[in-house]
């Protein structure tokens, strides 16, 4: 067609445009006019007009559906041959995230078949891989026979991330069950197994986030196997997920996504509980609770977050119900009966919209399933009761605490009623009365009458008190029970005055009836004493504890659980009143009874053991405390599961004992583990998180990791200020800690300004004579020393010493630490000779107060060694530096700068002994390392550098 000019095309377009919209007659006329034209042109024009007339293809908009699919499949289709060490063999599955291939490992001696999950393009590969690297340790540790293992991961040549997973051959959970017409019981057994596997992952702090039947395969032997554990987290960028972004969405399956996932809120173990609940619903009924057919965000959110889940046993669709019954080898009406009641409640509690309303752990869900299978009572709350309670809570936020406390107190007495068979009838009556009473309180509480939340909480309790007299006057059993319940609530709220008044009354009422019910009297006396002890009236509480002990011992014998309870409280009372010897003995007695009566792994037994461990730690027996805490931990893990507040507390206390024992690395690891649990189970600004940050920061400071510690203290300070207010003593502590790590990094002016702030707060709150203020002065002295103001440092240390000697004693390790610092300041101000006696005195006290291998001894050893070296006592100086180095090597990681001062002194001593080459090498190395870590003009670096006078040149 070359040579055809533009004019030809233009003319063609022109004529075509003219004629195309014309009626046929007019068109013929126009064609007639063109008769003289080029016949080719005319033929083309006619042909095109004809094509136009004969239903032309429009090409107006492209078919979006097909376009999406074409591109999507194009993405999936481009298969690399290899993924890391694996050769991809064939596709075996496909999902929203990507495609799964059967693959073989072609490197290494043997052939290994795995599943390789290759992700779609368009994800942020680098971030996914980075998260994979960060999490791989944890995921590789998920060693459970029912969890498919993650074997590796990386990127393929075209940049797409992949994960290699254990190859599982099996059928998706629901279809496997249906194909075998598995009855409800067998389905529940299978489900319980699945829960146990999920729980074991939770114990390692791994939440699945995308549990669904397709991720649970059942193999030929009928064993379930969970796929993709922890993968979802790798694919979602936590920091970016919010309600308005869709980043988090691609890693969940809408049908199984929990409300918090849809809202972009933090994912916790409760998220897996929810998904398991939906799966259980499907396993039982064959249908989804409310399959969201949503196509938009708003619809999805509406369905998942707001559509109420109906009980599994209620369904209006007879056809599908008949099929469901058939698939479960039963009849429709029988299936309905099986589900109604307990199983309804289990499912509804698991899929509650509010994570806090769900089972606290997957384990608790599994326990209820197990209980159902064994015909035991389940723990899931009855819907009506919980609903009333929660509806109330929704309107009155602070009232929550009270309602919760009441419910807890109530449910514990109900549980008691169920388990003590011999007194079952009477207890159950009482429990019913109490329950009815409390429900009545919720119903009567009119929100319109209340003036804010506090008032409501108080009103509720006051109304309760009032009604005890009005309504229960003729039922003294219930009356006493309720006085106890409300008193306990006040105790938990810290309203000791109210609690005390109520219990005083309850005790005198009970005394009248003591002949009939001496145990009830003992129980109330015990509670009264607990209240007094909590309020700090240890001496006043003492005789009441003893009376409770007598009553219980007389009625139940010396080795009963009730006696142990009193012993434990009494121990706590002595502990708080600083009578540590007696407290230790009482704990031991309580523990022996609990262990015999309840078993070693019982919650209560473990609680007493933990108390004793804390006591040992406070008494300076750190090693023993560590051993005991570890024992408590080992016994508690199977009871609570890892992600439990109890475990977080035990770990925290273990960490404290480890840190005091000088095991900084282990302490750090333990605090981190505790924090990890708290992050899963607590709100981000919960005080428990602050505690962890503080303990982590202090441990990092001991390890010389100042930058990391500073960041933590900074965050802690902000959290404390926002949650506690600017003048709370904790704000002062945080300022102190922040100042100390700022000072150690050589920023003296900044540190001193922070210390001034802290000082003002602590003066006003703790007081100038408190041990806490002594710690503040100690830190200030160090900051002054680092700034070169030795006189100022001395003054602060002397003040600190006075308080510490008076409050903590002459032989306390903190007193010793102050003495050591004073000796060092004297060394700086007055020279080596003047300091030696001070160092020796401090060392003697420290050695008495700390284990012999405690790293806190090292600075004193080195100070003394340095002074002795100056005085020419080379042998002892060298021995001291060797000892300090050995201590340090135990406590600090290889490569820590904290080891260098000891090396420097060792080098200088070697020089002084005449081994100049070797000594210089060591000294120069140490000074270099310190310069790098702390800066060349840091006091510690300069101290080391000054030792160079002992070496040649």
């Amino acid at each position: 067609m070359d040579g055809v000019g533009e004019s030809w095309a233009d003319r063609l377009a022109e004529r075509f445009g003219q004629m195309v919209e014309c009626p046929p007659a007019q068109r013929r006329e126009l064609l007639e006019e063109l008769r003289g034209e080029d016949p080719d042109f005319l033929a083309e024009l006619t042909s095109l007009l004809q094509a136009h007339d004969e239903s032309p293809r429009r090409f107006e908009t492209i078919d979006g559906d097909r376009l999406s699919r074409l591109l999507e499949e194009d993405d999936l289709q481009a298969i690399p041959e290899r993924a890391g060490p694996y050769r991809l063999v064939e596709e075996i599955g496909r999902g929203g995230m990507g495609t799964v291939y059967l693959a073989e490992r072609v490197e290494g001696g043997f052939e290994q078949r795995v599943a390789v999950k290759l992700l779609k393009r368009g994800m942020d590969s680098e971030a996914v891989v980075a998260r994979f690297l960060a999490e791989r340790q944890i995921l590789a540790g998920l060693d459970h026979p029912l969890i498919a293992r993650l074997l590796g991961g990386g990127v393929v040549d075209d940049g797409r991330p992949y994960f290699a997973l254990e190859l599982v051959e099996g059928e998706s959970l629901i279809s496997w069950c249906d194909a075998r017409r598995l009855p409800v019981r067998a389905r529940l057994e299978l489900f319980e197994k699945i829960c146990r596997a999920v729980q074991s992952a939770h114990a390692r702090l791994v939440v699945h986030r995308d549990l669904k039947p397709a991720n649970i395969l059942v193999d030929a032997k009928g064993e379930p196997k969970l796929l993709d554990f922890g993968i979802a987290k790798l694919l979602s960028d936590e920091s970016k997920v919010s309600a308005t972004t869709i980043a988090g969405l691609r890693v969940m399956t809408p049908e199984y996504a929990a409300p918090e996932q849809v809202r972009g809120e933090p994912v916790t173990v409760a998220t897996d509980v929810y998904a398991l609940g939906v799966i259980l619903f499907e396993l039982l009924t064959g249908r989804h609770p409310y399959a969201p057919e949503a196509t938009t965000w708003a619809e999805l959110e509406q369905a998942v977050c707001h559509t109420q889940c109906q009980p599994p046993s209620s369904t209006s669709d007879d056809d599908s119900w008949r099929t469901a019954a058939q698939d479960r080898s039963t009849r429709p009406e029988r299936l309905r009966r099986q589900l109604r009641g307990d199983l309804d409640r289990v499912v509804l509690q698991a899929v509650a919209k509010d994570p806090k309303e769900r089972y606290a752990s997957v384990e608790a869900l599994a326990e209820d399933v197990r209980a159902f299978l064994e015909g035991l009572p389940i723990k899931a709350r009855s819907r009506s009761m919980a609903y009333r309670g929660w509806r109330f809570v929704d309107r009155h936020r602070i009232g929550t605490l009270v309602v919760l406390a009441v419910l807890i107190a109530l449910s514990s007495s109900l549980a008691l009623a169920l388990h003590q068979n011999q007194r079952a009838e009477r207890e159950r009556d009482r429990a019913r009365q109490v329950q009815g009473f409390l429900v009545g309180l919720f119903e009567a509480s009119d929100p319109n009458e209340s003036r804010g939340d506090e008032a409501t909480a108080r009103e509720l309790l006051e109304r309760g008190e009032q009604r005890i007299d009005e309504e229960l006057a003729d039922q003294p059993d219930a009356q006493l029970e309720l006085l106890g319940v409300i008193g306990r609530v006040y105790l938990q709220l810290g309203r000791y005055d109210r609690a005390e008044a109520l219990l005083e009354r309850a005790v005198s009422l009970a005394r009248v009836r003591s002949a009939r019910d001496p145990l009830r009297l003992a129980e109330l006396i015990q509670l009264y004493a607990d209240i007094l002890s909590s309020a700090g009236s240890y001496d006043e509480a003492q005789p009441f504890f003893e009376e409770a002990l007598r009553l219980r011992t007389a009625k139940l014998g010396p080795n009963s659980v009730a006696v142990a309870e009193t012993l434990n409280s009494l121990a706590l009372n002595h502990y708080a009143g600083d009578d540590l010897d007696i407290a230790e003995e009482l704990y031991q007695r309580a523990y022996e009874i609990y262990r015999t009566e309840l078993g070693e792994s019982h919650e209560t037994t473990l609680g007493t053991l933990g108390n004793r461990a804390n006591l040992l730690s406070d008494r300076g027996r750190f090693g023993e405390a560590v051993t005991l805490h570890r024992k408590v931990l080992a016994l508690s893990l199977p009871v609570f599961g890892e992600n439990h507040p109890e475990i977080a507390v035990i770990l925290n206390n273990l960490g404290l004992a480890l840190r005091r024992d000088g095991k900084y690395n282990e302490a750090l690891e333990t605090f981190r583990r505790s924090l990890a649990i708290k992050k899963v189970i607590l709100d981000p600004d919960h005080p428990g998180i602050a505690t962890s940050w503080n303990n982590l920061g202090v441990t990092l400071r001991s390890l010389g990791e100042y930058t990391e510690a500073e960041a933590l203290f900074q965050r802690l300070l902000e959290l404390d200020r926002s949650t506690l207010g600017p003048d709370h003593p904790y704000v002062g502590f945080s300022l102190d800690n922040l100042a100390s790590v700022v000072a150690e990094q050589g920023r003296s002016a900044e540190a001193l300004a922070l210390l001034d702030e802290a000082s003002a707060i602590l003066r006003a709150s703790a007081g100038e004579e408190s041990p806490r203020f002594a710690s503040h002065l100690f830190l200030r002295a160090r900051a002054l020393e680092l700034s070169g103001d030795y006189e100022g440092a001395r003054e602060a240390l002397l003040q600190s010493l006075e308080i510490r000697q008076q409050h903590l004693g002459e032989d306390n390790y903190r007193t010793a630490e102050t003495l050591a610092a004073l000796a060092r300041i004297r060394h700086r101000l007055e020279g080596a000779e003047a300091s030696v006696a001070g160092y020796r005195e401090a060392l003697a006290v420290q050695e008495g107060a700390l284990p012999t291998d405690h790293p806190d001894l090292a600075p004193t050893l080195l100070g003394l060694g340095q002074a002795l070296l100056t005085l020419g006592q080379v042998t002892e100086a060298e021995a001291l530096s060797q000892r300090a180095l050995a201590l340090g090597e135990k406590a600090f990681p290889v490569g820590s700068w904290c080891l260098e001062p000891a090396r420097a002194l060792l080098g200088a001593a070697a020089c002084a002994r005449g081994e100049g080459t070797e000594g210089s090498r060591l000294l120069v190395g140490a000074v270099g390392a310190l310069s790098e870590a702390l800066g060349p003009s840091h006091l510690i670096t300069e101290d080391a550098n000054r030792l160079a006078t002992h070496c040649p040149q």
Partner: protein
Amino acid sequence: MEANPIDNSKSAITMILEKATAHDRESLDALLPLVYDELRVMARRQLAGEWRQKPFQTTGLVHEAYLKLIDQSAVPLANRHYFFAAAARAMRQILVDAARRRNRTKRGGGHLPESLNEATLAVDGFAAELIDLDSALDELARTLPRQAQVLECRYFGGLSVEETAGALSISPRSVKRDFALAQAWLSRELRSGPPE
């Protein structure tokens, strides 16, 4: 990270667009590879990222790409239509490339499973159509280049009549006529079987 290439191409695209003039094929050709990669990535993101998304429209993609890639303060408003034209060309290329790959694997018996459901067949048909349309459009461009371009903008870029007019510096009326002509021409060609 992917941020760097995007930033680079942004300045390059902006620079090209700043000096682009109507019918400047060179500028258009220079834009194509820059726009191609970005559009493909954006399409991927949309496909991978959105939850049960309604089939996406190329119109949206092209406009989004414009906002993302162009420093609007540096580019005369009129010139944004050149970008649209380039984007439409790139979309065509992207789709045809995908369709060709799909055809190849089908023939070569690659890794796609033989799940011949209706949806798969529909996409197969779509891919074949795309390839045929592409050849036909090439053919059309030889005799009626402007009309071919109008169809490309309207169909592959999802551009409106006005945007197409702006991109090609012709009147909206001409766009309508050219579009009708191209439609007729393609109908005739494609009806008589795929070109050799």
